């Protein structure tokens, strides 16, 4: 089956602005389901979904699972540790085995860039990329877009700076594609050792100083700094990182205006972001988490063949046109 998004959601790069807008619009009616006392609609009743996580994840896995369960899908969680190589079974064999169980969808997280596409090309089920290596994390990008749109009312013309370890961030790539396709202006800021050399070619501005980024942006999306970047020699110390690139209240106050603060989590408080910013009045970090469930419900609904114009009705009780 192939709906308005095609068979799979592998990244935001292959999507058009219209497709992204469709997902965000479809997420709107689904938000309300999570506010009900009985958080369940029968939309995906009878659908079988495997959450295949080759990397540890709490937030994303739980968010997907809630999205699936609130749509009444049958879900199975598979936590496969390590890469397929160390596990002994190849990814293609894993895929074939799942396919043989006649599943409808796979939500996959994997440490290798391209793993979701690899799977999608080899099975007929819908594949949703829940993060592949340092490539993309499209549902995170979508929930960031939804959160920004909720707050600013639009994305077109918005100035968003992605701060930190862009080089190793799938969240950054999905945000860059999603935001630029929706007409936002995107910048990145971080030590050059943590920015891809060819980042200019992706249509973004680069700021070497966090003060410049804060002076320019309407919103900051602050990336998690993986602690192992220090031992791998990309930065000298977390302490210095915080002093040079950390998003602090002092730095934000100097801008003289309010910036919206996003963070995909989990946070390293006191490293890339100070606690009084993360917990401050302009932080929408928990709104992002709430929106994550709605966006994932929208993606599941659309990929399963649900018609966008029926999303409002679907949540009331009718099944998707599956």
């Amino acid at each position, binding site marked *: 089956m192939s709906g308005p998004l095609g068979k799979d959601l592998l990244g935001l790069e292959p999507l058009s602005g219209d497709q992204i807008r469709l997902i965000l619009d479809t997420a709107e009616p689904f938000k309300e389901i999570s506010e009900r006392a009985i958080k369940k609609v029968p939309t995906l009743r009878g659908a079988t979904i495997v959450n295949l996580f080759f990397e540890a994840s709490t937030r994303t896995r739980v968010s997907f699972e809630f999205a699936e369960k609130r749509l009444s899908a049958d879900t199975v969680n598979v936590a496969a540790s390590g890469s397929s190589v160390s596990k002994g079974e190849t990814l293609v064999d894993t895929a074939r085995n799942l396919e043989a169980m006649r599943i409808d969808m796979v939500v996959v997280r994997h440490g290798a860039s391209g793993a979701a596409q690899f799977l999608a090309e080899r099975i007929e089920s819908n594949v949703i990329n829940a993060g592949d290596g340092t490539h993309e994390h499209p549902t995170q990008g979508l929930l960031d877009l939804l959160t920004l749109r909720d707050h600013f009312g639009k994305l077109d013309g918005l100035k968003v700076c992605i701060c930190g370890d862009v080089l190793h961030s799938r969240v950054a790539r999905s945000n860059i594609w999603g935001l630029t396709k929706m007409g936002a202006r995107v910048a990145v800021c971080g030590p050059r050792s943590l920015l891809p*050399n060819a980042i200019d070619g992706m249509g973004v501005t680069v700021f070497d100083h966090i003060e410049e980024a804060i002076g320019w942006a309407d919103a900051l999306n602050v990336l998690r700094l993986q602690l192992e970047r220090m031992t791998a020699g990309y930065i000298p110390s977390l302490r210095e990182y915080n002093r040079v690139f950390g998003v602090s209240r002092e730095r934000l106050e100097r801008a003289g205006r309010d910036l919206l603060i996003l963070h995909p989590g989990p946070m390293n408080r006191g490293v890339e972001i100070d606690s009084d910013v993360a917990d401050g009045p302009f932080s929408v970090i928990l709104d992002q988490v709430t929106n994550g469930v709605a966006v994932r419900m929208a993606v599941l609904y659309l990929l399963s063949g649900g018609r966008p114009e029926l999303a409002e009705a679907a949540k009331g009780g009718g099944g998707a046109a599956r």
Partner: protein
Amino acid sequence: MSKLILLRGGRVVDPSQRLDAVADVLIADGKIAAVGARVAEGAPGAEILDCAGLVVAPGFIDVHCHLREPGREDVETIATGARAAAAGGFTAVCAMPNTDPVTDNQAAVGFIVRQAQRADAARVYPIGAVSVGQKGGSLAEFGEMVGAGAVAVSDDGKPVASAHLMRTALEYARTFGIPVADHCEEPTLAQGGAMNEGLMSAKLGLKGIPSEAEEIMAIRDILLARRTGGHVHLCHMSTRGSVDLIRWGKERNINVTAEVCPHHISLTEDAVDGYDTNAKMNPPLRTADDVEALRDAVKDGTIDVIATDHAPHHYDEKEREFADAPNGIVGLETALAVNVTWLVRPGILDVPTLVERMSVAPARIFHLPGGTLRPGAPADVTVFDPAAEWVVEPARFRSKGRNSPYAGMTLTGRVHFTLVDGRVIHRAG
């Protein structure tokens, strides 16, 4: 009565004697007997191979391939590799020593020589390791390996990381008159890299290998060749910067030669899009600008030879996540067609220059027999149609490897006959 073969009416292209004319080639007793218009008259009863409309050239020589035996006979053997070579028009290939065990001693070299004799296809010349076990520590026994049949030394697959080791290898190799072939890769820069570092690697989220990883080692090797007077041969050059550095070295008469692979003059990093593991090799596919520089360098001779870096892998090994897939593609059976399609047809190389880069120059720089159709030379001959189109179907390869980025493409240039010592070892089906 000696066995006579007449290659009749082809366009004989032999840059070693500045020959490019329609002529017959007469072969007697495995050697070239005569080349000319009327040689047939003196050869009644000769077996005749009709070469009208075809190019008759000295046999192609590949100075860089991986035949996987010993160690990975499931992937390729010397016999299947030598047959794949013959099908690709190669009358001789040089086998890299990254086998298991490593070809780093005279017994291992002798094994390859014997297996090649049994295969009875293209000639196979072993290349010995630079260092024992290719570990980058102490020198392997160049003298004994040369005595057993090695024609060069290389730690290919791995760079010679130590500048001191490279220096002593270049010095020590002088006694034996052999080139030291280096896989130029600065290991700390290239570590973990899966493709060219650039916009495509940034988009795909794959760790890149910057051009400088190759160029730093290329200039190191050139400078050490200057210091030592040894002959350094730079394997599979892939960047514009490397071309500039080689040019710099040659202008100063430094003893440096270089090769380029067909894939590096035909494909760019864009082929990796979609995580196609058949576009994964090391050095990686680079940018259009690099491709342009490499084509120019093949044309003007800055790059001496075209070599395949034929690297068969089991399909299971390529059927996996991009970062985990092994490097390399098969190349023996597509090399001519890729070169014709991307160099000759667009007018970058004429046919004589192509033959120079695929036959004459490899023989010259690796001091190998062949590379000429002069009377008296071994009758190693390649006959090909430079205009014939064919579709690449890996399932039909003689190689055990199927890992080709050209699968399904229509290419131009097809081998008709390959002869070694006057015996037809391949005939187009």
